[in-house]
């Protein structure tokens, strides 16, 4: 009887060790480092909350935090809503649909460095986007999409959305295929049109998946780094610098590892709060307990 009670926990041990090693131990280590002055070479010196005090007085920290929230507000709704419609579109039994499913998924498997360079060409002053806009007559002078403080962050957001659409579309596609077809048949008999079927059956049944996508895309947006690193380096004038990029710079360029850890802890707290809000708000709609 006792052995029966113990068995499940024995199965948990390997997972716990891996989690402890790669998640909880580094996390606790980061929290400890955030209370120290540490440059990776000399021994860490305990300084209490000084890193946090300095962070709160650092204008650049607030700017990067603001940029991160702008990123979040811009990217998450797009990544939650657009893939639903893409998934509905590719969830048809028509000839050649698998080609479109693959086409939408290609950006997901494309290396971010390659994608960043390709988009860099699109955004250049004499690049594809300005050329197209000039031909259509929307602009007369080329716009420096990545070289202007007012557009750089939004230009990078587009790349994040472009790259994420296919991934979240696949999640929704799995959700769509789990909806029983008899619901639609019943709706049709009741005279529901396509739009009513989408809004009354598809979207409510997809809510658990919306929750997952919402949390995943929020966390991704909070942690955005590669696009910024490859395309703008945080510039011009830190206008596209996000919190993770700031942490990276402080840690590996300026060797302020304790300070960077403090910023990392703050990022963790914000991400945690965001996930809890997501769970509370979406969880009710998705009947998730």
């Amino acid at each position: 009887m006792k052995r029966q009670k113990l068995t499940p926990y024995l199965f948990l041990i390997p997972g716990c060790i891996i989690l402890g090693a790669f998640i909880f131990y580094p996390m606790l280590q980061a929290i400890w480092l955030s209370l120290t002055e540490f440059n990776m070479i000399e021994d860490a010196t305990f300084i209490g909350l000084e890193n946090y005090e300095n962070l709160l007085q650092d204008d650049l920290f607030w700017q990067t935090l603001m940029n991160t929230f702008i990123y979040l507000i811009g990217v998450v709704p797009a990544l939650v809503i657009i893939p639903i419609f893409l998934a509905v579109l590719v969830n048809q039994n028509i000839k050649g649909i698998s080609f479109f499913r693959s086409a939408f998924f290609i950006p997901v498997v494309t290396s971010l460095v390659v994608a960043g360079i390709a988009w860099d060409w699109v955004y250049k002053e004499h690049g594809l986007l300005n050329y197209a806009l000039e031909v259509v007559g929307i602009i007369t002078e080329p716009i420096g999409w990545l070289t202007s403080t007012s557009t750089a962050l939004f230009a990078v957001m587009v790349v994040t959305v472009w790259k994420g659409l296919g991934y979240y579309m696949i999640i929704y596609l799995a959700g769509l295929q789990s909806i029983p077809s008899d619901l639609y048949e019943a709706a049709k008999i009741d005279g529901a049109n396509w739009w009513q079927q989408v809004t009354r059956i598809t979207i409510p049944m997809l809510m658990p998946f919306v929750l997952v996508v919402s949390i995943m895309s929020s966390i991704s947006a909070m942690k955005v780094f590669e696009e910024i690193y490859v395309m703008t380096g945080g510039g011009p004038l830190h206008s596209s610098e996000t919190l993770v990029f700031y942490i990276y710079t402080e840690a590996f360029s300026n060797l302020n590892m304790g300070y960077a850890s403090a910023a990392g802890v703050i990022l963790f707290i914000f991400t945690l709060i965001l996930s809890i809000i997501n769970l509370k708000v979406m969880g009710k709609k998705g009947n998730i307990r």
Partner: protein
Amino acid sequence: MKRNQLIFFMFLIAAMVFLAACNDDSTETSGSDSGEDEEITLEFWTMQLQPTFTDYINGMIDDFEADNPNITINWLDVPAGDLEQKILADVSAGNAPDLVNLNPSFGGSLAELDATVNMDEALSDEEIDRYVEGAWEASQLDGETFGIPWYLDTAVTLNNADIYEEAGLDPSQPPETYEEAKEYAEIISEETDKYGYFPSLDLSLPLQHMELMGVPLTNEDGTAAFNTPDGVEVFEYFTELYENNLIPAESLTGDQREGTNFYQSGQVAFGVNFFIAEIEENAPDIYDSTVPSVAITGDSGKKTMSVQNLVVPEQSEHQEAAVDFGLFITSAENQLEFAQLTPILPSSTEALEDPYFTDPPEDADPLELVRITSAEQLPDAELLVPPMDNLNELQTVMYDGFSKAMLGELSPEEALAETEEKWNEIVAE
């Protein structure tokens, strides 16, 4: 339920304690090699030399191992972008390599933390005299030398003769000063649909522009010395170029590779710090019309020298052998062979006396002309931005100052004053 949670939590704690126990924070440092016959393995790291120079480096390693049968060299080549992080992580974990190829600014960061061997003590005066003086001094911080200079470079201007001719300019009379560069940029902009000049503002280049234009960066105590009328002129110069669209906007945001891309795609007529070997490979037509010339400079008349050095971390257990291997790599013979593979200059004075660097061949191609021009400038060249404490942060502060002026967020005077204030805050920390 609570009991179950407690057991679960205990597993987690156990895992963490187990890991913490595995984490060895001790960083034992011992600096001596014991006995000549002891079997030694040296960890040697380079910065992005594979695959182009794999055979060359392996050849050197084979020769050194043949001369020193008890020593085995373990060579690791690390991508340039990852090297700083990798060495930091390994030094932090107490696993530093024995010999590592760094640049003076990052070598200086390690030296600042007393993590490097003092080469003034490790080498004899005779050995020190083998190197170009400016190159030796480039690896000094607070009067101590932390690296052996390996290969060098002096900035050279590359000019696209086709664009010059299209603009009605003489390619054999390229700009040599910042003022001339501006005049040429104006003419090229008016006469063609291309840019004249691409002045990069990457990494330490804003600081270098200041020095070249005759504005000293620091006082004796490291505080800012650049907030002067001359300093304002530097900011005004770049702001005018930017506002009048005489340089690509990417000059401000892009790195030196971006400049090379503009040049090799035929969109820019001239600039310093472009990668000639890359241009030869990617744009043969542009390469054929390239005319190298002396680097653009300002009132100071100074020329820029770039240095790659070899550093022995203090943690190395085989410091003596590592220094010997560093001396072997930087010998005149080995450096001359290296310089014949790629457009770099040796730090060895003996190697520099070779006709390869002094006598241009007839019908020299652009690559050869770059080498000759670069070598001719070497006696007057210096590392304009020597290693200094918190260099990365100071570079960022200066770059932000340039950016604010060029983007019109602040006037040049205001931007410079703010830069001075932030610079001094960092120095005071």
